[in-house]
């Protein structure tokens, strides 16, 4: 069963990314590194685009031209934010498949760290399990 519904995922990640951009300088880092990301998530099926301006979802996101696209299942997303995922191993095992310059993909991991620190707050808020 999916770890979250599409509705919860959009609300949660909308808040999480917006806060990372506003409070943790993530937008500036994305801009400086020339990175935008398009997430294609299954179970629940959803798409999200993020650049320095913040996250957008659904058909609006589909229209964008991302630098990096990442495809994974919802439970892998949850594990990632819980720091419960070895991302290079997940990539090697095709649990995550990424399109876009490998160097930018490698660079994304350290940039996303602040989000991992605040993710448990959102798990509480949206009543998600704190263990993957």
């Amino acid at each position: 069963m999916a770890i979250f519904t599409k509705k919860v995922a959009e609300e949660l990640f909308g808040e999480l990314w917006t806060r990372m951009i506003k409070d943790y300088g993530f937008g500036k880092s994305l801009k400086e590194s020339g990175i935008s990301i398009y997430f294609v998530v299954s179970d629940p099926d959803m798409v999200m685009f993020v650049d320095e301006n913040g996250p957008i979802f659904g058909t609006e996101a589909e229209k964008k031209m991302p630098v990096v696209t990442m495809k994974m299942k919802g439970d892998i997303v949850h594990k990632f934010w819980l720091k419960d995922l070895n991302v290079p191993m997940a990539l090697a095992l095709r649990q995550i498949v990424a399109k876009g310059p490998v160097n930018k993909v490698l660079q994304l991991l350290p940039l996303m760290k602040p989000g991992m620190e605040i993710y448990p707050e959102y798990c509480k808020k949206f009543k998600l399990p704190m263990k993957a």
Partner: protein
Amino acid sequence: MEYFDIQFMNLTEDDIALKKATHKFAEEVMRPTAKALDTMSAEDVVADGSPLWTFLKKAYELGYHKTLLPEYYGGLGLSPLQVHIVFEELGWGSFGLSVLLGVICFPFYVSCLAGNEELIEKYVKPFCACTDASIRGCWAITEPDHGSDYIASGEDYFTTPKMHGNVQARLEGDEYVINGQKSAWVSGGTIATHALLFLQLDPKHGFGGNGICVLPLDLDGVTKGKPLEKIGQRDLNQGEIYFDNVRIPKSYMLAEPTFYEPLLEMILASANMIMATWSTGIARAAFEEALVYSKERVQGTRPLIEHYAHKQRVFKLFARTEVIRAISRNVLNLNLNVSPPLAEYSLVAKSQCTEMAFQNAHELIQIMGGNGLTREYIAEKLFRDARATLIEDGNNETLERHGGHILAETYPRPPLDF
């Protein structure tokens, strides 16, 4: 010689400037260094005062040691096309010195691939900032008893206990203790300061129980062998590394058995596609020599190139160069843009491009007749260097078997339709 680029319409001003600058380095620094080193003994190649050290210092000052590394950590941050442009020119300058620059970055590049933040801070960033060539990596995988089978993860024997590695590590508290020996083929082995070391952690699973670590080579218990003498790529230093109760922190192990095979596959995919890009350079060098010689050498009252049958021979060298370039660029562009890489394409690129580059070097000697065999011309060196590429980074037959294994396991591969 100026060589037309079939993708000229896609080249930016930066790409063209990069190509010119790298070619200048290849022509003015690499070629003369490689020529000098080729005639020296393997020990003299790495002795104090050898032209190798001046070459390395220049290469580091210009940043060629960090071509592959992410900009974020201090690397050059080049596009796949730019990486190809640089490696083609370096391969043209000298295949052996290109390989040396390639393995020099390997422990650091793979630390990034494995996302090991401790090693990135401690070793990758200083390596990127290094301009005096004092930090040098190597890739220590093969052993006296294990060559092709070290990478043959598709073979049935790979994970059997009979596959006993020479270099073993055991965990003692928070440290790994390492013993054993790597083969005389470790490129840059006798001059490296850091190794990307492949070793066995759990012998009951054969090589399925292997791991990969980064090991600083100034630790107690590390010794090196004598530099290896060989017929090709004599400018590429090689030699054994021995480990006698060498201790490293557990965190230096980039991959333990669960991550070993996937990381091995990613490393092979990277190394093999890069071998193909350097092959473009050596194939082009052979074509250019053939063309120049064919215009100079007069037989039957006119230059060789004016004999109709000879034109076809020169054209074949040109055609192979273009095919090699097309394959290697496409594969580099693919595998520097998808994670995980599609290893079968890297295996296509390495096996096919090195074969064709070798055919070019072989045919160049034939085109030059007796002169092709003399040391007065570069042809015989290109031939010896290209010959080694058929074995280096995995025998081509072994790589093709492995490619077949990937096809059997994964094809038809679904499109990356997202």
